[in-house]
């Protein structure tokens, strides 16, 4: 095996081996070896499995360079800014892809292989696969196809379905109903009612808060899709959303919610110490694993709540695979060959079977999704139509640095919600001004 990633893939190997036998004897290598830079995430294991399958089926060699989240981003930036990239495929996060797009660092996939077409069953995640360099917008009609999705990370509510049944609770539609359910379980069972991902990181609390913001009718900009970058983060709707976020943290959260990161949330859920947590869908792979979970078969999945009169708005934090421009042609061809193989319906179903999170309706709408152990796929199917991207501008890296600190300080109690929103809006307005956008911001919220 050529991956630098460890060997923790015993179970799926049987599937992989049997699928590899489709082609009879091991095929000869037809493409250059490729090197993929990827981050360490809950979905890595599934992706590594599918990479193994590719190697077995095609004889082509793939290396995974696995890094912490921020480290992966740094390596990607360095690679595309060098004379020649050391990576053939970049696995770019749904938050940071705009800087790769606008910087002109990725080669349109159809320029590498004119015959390449996106499989019609692959989800397009708010059209974030295409980029129009003239209008500097993501646009499926006029843009170039720069990436294909490799992971569908949207947020979902993970909850203790067994406790819901025990206490006769209904799935919540609104945040208030969620709060009531979390309180009921917390009081009856003595476990934490709701865990929020409120820690500061490269991106953590922002991704957790955004579904509240959007589902209260708030937004970062007045109309980003229409090119209106007037900052509206300090709107009354955003304030209501933040107050609700803080209320949940205070009433049904752990004692120090401001330090809760994703790994801690997963730890609390799999050890049966929390009733609810909003997590990326990829974390489902750990819930029914008896080696990692004390709540096998007890976790249910549902779409996120919303404010009355609004719709649920899970945040898209998907991952995209793209090919750097600064590569030799043979490497570009090899990279596209992998991506093309990856997006095919049969690969996507195999990806799901091997513990991955597929990106194609072929997996979510087939019989496979109806099995009890794949129940997350039903919730995912419901959530995808209303999932919302956070932003599509390269200044996202600067914006998220502001929101991570501002929101976390509010949860930690260093500043109040009004001051947090006003100060974040002011900082974001300045970032946009400095970047040359026509911008502005709402008047400060009053205390």
């Amino acid at each position, binding site marked *: 095996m050529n991956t630098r990633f460890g060997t923790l893939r015993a179970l799926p190997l049987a599937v992989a081996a049997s699928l590899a036998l489709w082609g009879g004897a091991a095929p000869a290598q037809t493409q250059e070896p490729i090197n993929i830079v990827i981050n360490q995430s809950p979905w890595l294991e599934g992706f590594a499995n599918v990479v193994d399958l590719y190697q077995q089926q095609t004889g082509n060699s793939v290396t995974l360079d696995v890094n912490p989240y*921020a480290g992966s981003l740094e390596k990607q930036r360095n690679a*595309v800014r060098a004379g020649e990239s050391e990576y053939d495929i970049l696995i770019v996060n749904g938050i940071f892809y705009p800087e790769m797009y*606008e910087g002109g*660092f990725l080669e349109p996939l159809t320029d590498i292989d004119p015959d390449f077409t996106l499989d019609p069953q692959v989800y397009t995640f708010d059209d974030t696969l295409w980029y129009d360099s003239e209008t500097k917008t993501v646009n499926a009609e006029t843009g170039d196809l720069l990436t294909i999705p490799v992971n569908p990370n949207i947020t979902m509510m993970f909850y203790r379905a067994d406790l819901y049944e025990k206490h006769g609770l209904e799935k919540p539609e609104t945040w208030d109903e969620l709060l009531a359910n979390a309180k009921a379980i917390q009081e009856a069972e003595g476990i934490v009612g709701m865990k929020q991902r409120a820690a*500061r990181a490269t991106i953590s609390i922002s991704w957790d808060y955004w579904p509240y913001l959007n589902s209260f009718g708030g937004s970062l900009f007045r109309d980003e899709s229409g090119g209106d970058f007037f900052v509206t983060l300090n709107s009354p709707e955003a304030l209501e959303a933040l107050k609700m976020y803080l209320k949940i943290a205070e009433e049904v959260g752990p004692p*120090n919610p*401001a330090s809760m990161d994703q790994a801690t949330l997963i730890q609390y859920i799999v050890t049966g110490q929390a009733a609810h947590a909003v997590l990326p869908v990829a974390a489902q792979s750990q819930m029914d694993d008896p080696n990692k979970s004390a709540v096998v078969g007890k976790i249910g999945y549902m779409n996120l709540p919303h404010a009355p009169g609004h719709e649920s708005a899970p945040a898209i934090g998907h991952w995209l695979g793209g090919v750097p421009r600064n590569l030799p042609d043979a490497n570009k061809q090899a990279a596209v060959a992998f991506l093309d193989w990856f997006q095919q319906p049969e690969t996507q179903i195999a990806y799901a079977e091997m513990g991955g999170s597929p990106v194609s309706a072929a997996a979510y709408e087939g019989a496979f999704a109806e099995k009890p152990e794949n129940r997350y796929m039903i919730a995912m199917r419901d959530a995808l139509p209303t999932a919302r991207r956070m932003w599509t501008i390269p200044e996202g890296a600067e914006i998220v640095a502001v929101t991570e*600190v501002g929101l976390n*300080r509010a949860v930690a109690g*260093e500043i109040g919600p009004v001051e947090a929103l006003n100060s974040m809006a002011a900082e974001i307005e300045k970032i946009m001004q400095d970047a040359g956008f026509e911008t502005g911001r709402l008047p400060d919220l009053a205390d």
Partner: protein
Amino acid sequence: MAMVQASRPVRFLTVLPALLFLVLLSMLPLANLLALSFAKVTWAEGSARWDWVGLANYRALADDALFEAGILNTLILVVSATTLQVGIGLGLALICSRLGRSARAYRTLFLLPILIPGIIIGAIWKLMYNVQFGIINQALALVGLGPVDWLGSSSLALASVIAVDVWHWTPFSFLLLLAAVEALPKDVFEAAQIDGAGAWRTFRRITLPLLWPAIFTTFIFRAIIAFKVFDEVYLLTGGGPGTSTQVISFTIYQRFFVQDSAGYGAAMSVFVMFLVAVVIGVAMTRQKARTR
């Protein structure tokens, strides 16, 4: 034997390779950092573009809450951690100097923390501080206390980081001060003993003044290193909760690399270097005046 005096050009040529080496390795990167601090760098179409922004990056420092928190927390950490390290290091050095032959074993034991890589220290202490299964909370539970969220509580997180820094770096102070203690002139102490001076009086009036230059130098060395603290914060708290453990190196890392604001990150770096130089310069000047 008579010394041959080299001519001025020969002396200059002799020093030149070392000078060039210094310029290449130190001055050029510093000059590049300084130039970067007056620019905004953007990447487009695969190449970097530098736009001159004058003092804008420096002016922006005044409005940066993360920078302000970073400076404040770093100063708290530098003063408290360094004071504790020098104090404990001095105590251990004095004890060790009286142990005779067994001192060697203790010396090795005391030096262990400084030999452990930062990443391992982070992992060890993160586990020890864990609210649910950390050994510290388990020990507290035995006497009916806790659990305490050492790293998750805004009021405790910085103190917890300082405790790790003290554990990690006290051996450095110990090592420097032990050398100074062992070099103290014995006759002075014998004379004090003959004159009937007690232990505390001897320590206050003789040991401490004689050791003062070494203590001061150790403090300055440690303060300079402590000012650069990064790995402990990165591994233990990530600067949070809120800004309670935000230190300046971590702020620079976030602005420079994560946020990709190279110009602004460079301005922050230059300012911090200037600040450290001023603080150290003032301290050295005062020490010289005191010595005179």
